[in-house]
């Protein structure tokens, strides 16, 4: 049942040490502000799930919050490596990182099955490659009608989903537009959720009859954090800051430069710093 909360309170209440957490976002609407709050609160031993772990996961891993990563593509899109992720895997810094590695199809199906209340998903995949050799969660199920062997994977059922969306109304109904990713599924698959939004409005605006809405009784904490996806973007509000993604390559390459950037820009700040990115860029329906 939705509760409108400040960010620090929402993260404190929803995310606990050792939890399995999915901060989702497929390029669009990545919950950076919420991720920073998790770092500030010093969570430890998290299992992080995400199809495309990028900068915010690099930061969480580099700051030592994470003991395991469940993922399908871990890079800085269009730029290159995630240096903190690589440092953790290749050198165990700041500590060892366990990996559970999937394909995108598997991850998307696992969220879908979680949202659908199923224990597993079946799909046509993982044929011939090496991933099933290094991931014991990949099994096979035989179709009882055709005899075809399909891939089977356990549903994702995170303790907490953390997403960012464009807007919520005062009751906590959340509306998402544009590149949708797996965020709706992540929230529906999770026990608890934190949804940061660009704005909380009195009522959801005029919308398509089939708009993507998470009704208030399916979400947990709803937090207004304008700009909270930066340097990712919020369709209708502000564009992706591609330059920051490029700059991150240099910031994160060395442990020292990473740590001093985190200290200055995350540990010493609060979610209000995101507001300057949250200016309205264009109207949503354009």
């Amino acid at each position, binding site marked *: 049942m939705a509760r409108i909360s400040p960010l620090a309170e929402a993260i404190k209440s929803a995310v606990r040490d050792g939890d399995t957490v999915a901060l989702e976002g497929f390029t669009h609407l990545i919950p950076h502000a919420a991720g920073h709050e998790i770092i500030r609160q010093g969570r430890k031993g998290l299992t992080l799930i995400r199809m495309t772990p990028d900068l915010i996961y690099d930061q969480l891993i580099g700051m030592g919050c994470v003991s395991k990563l469940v993922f399908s593509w871990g890079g800085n899109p269009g730029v290159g*490596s995630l240096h903190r992720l*690589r440092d953790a895997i290749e050198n165990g810094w700041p500590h060892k990182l366990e990996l559970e590695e999937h*394909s*995108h199809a598997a991850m998307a199906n696992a969220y879908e099955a979680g949202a659908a209340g199923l224990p597993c998903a079946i799909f*046509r995949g993982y044929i*011939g*490659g*090496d991933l099933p050799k290094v991931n014991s969660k990949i099994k096979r199920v035989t179709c009882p009608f055709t005899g075809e062997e399909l891939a089977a994977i356990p549903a994702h059922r995170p303790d907490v989903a953390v997403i960012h969306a464009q807007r919520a109304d005062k009751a906590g109904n959340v509306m998402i537009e*544009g590149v949708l990713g797996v965020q709706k599924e992540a929230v529906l698959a999770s026990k608890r959720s934190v949804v940061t939004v660009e704005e909380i409005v009195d009522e959801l605006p005029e919308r398509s009859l089939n708009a993507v809405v998470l009704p208030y009784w399916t979400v947990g904490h709803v937090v207004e954090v304008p700009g909270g996806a930066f340097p990712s973007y919020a369709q209708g509000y502000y564009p992706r800051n591609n330059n920051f993604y490029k700059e991150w390559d240099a910031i994160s390459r060395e442990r020292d430069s990473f740590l001093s950037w985190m200290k200055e820009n995350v540990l010493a700040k609060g979610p209000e710093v995101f507001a300057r990115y949250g200016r309205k860029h264009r109207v949503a329906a354009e």
Partner: protein
Amino acid sequence: MADFKPNEMMTIAAARALKNDDVCFVGIGQPSAACNLARLTHAPNITLIYESGTLATKPNILPLSIGDGELCETAITTVSVPEMFRYWLQGGRIKVGFLGGAQIDKYANLNTTVVGPYDKPKVRLPGGGGAPEIATSCGEIFIIMAQGKRSFVDKLDFVTSIGHVSGGDSRAKLGVKTKGPTKLITDLALFEPDPNTKEMTVVSIHSGVTREQIQENSGWPVKFAVKVAETPPPTQRELDVLRELHARTNRAHAEAA
């Protein structure tokens, strides 16, 4: 003849392989440049799909990421990622899938996972992303990769996505009904699978490139087809459109900052 870079030749050769009625699953980088170059030249109605869910998108600039707002705004619609992988990719609705990788072998199997052992990697790469199922669900696969001894290898450190497996009918024997890699476009040449062995074989050499250069930049003894063509060099129009696309993209990314 216009002056051009090997990289430009690679993108242009890939674009030429695409047809107006193709439905393509587009990856970021070279594939995205090639697909949009095709759209802006000889294939204006080509259908481009990015795994972020954007269907039939017509970006004016190249996206940096797979889900840039530009892709969504110019698409006919945008579906969720589970729907993309279930109804569109697995549903068999994609004709051509584009892939690249850090390593490729002579049967066009790809590695985008690790260099070195999986548990103790020398270089940890981003991972498979959509590739394992793109490789088996799309009607056919085009691969774009610049050649080099570190990337064109005799044996992959890890098979992220399959091509023709161990050659011959080994792919079909796994139950896969799609064609797999039908073209490998490099900065030096165009490879296609031998009809029987399925080994990727040079069928066309880019203008100004020698057989020796191709061999020097491959980690296995390269096969050449009986008749090897010379890839026509880029036309001025192809180069102009490609360069303007990159310039427009760079201006837009700089402005947005």
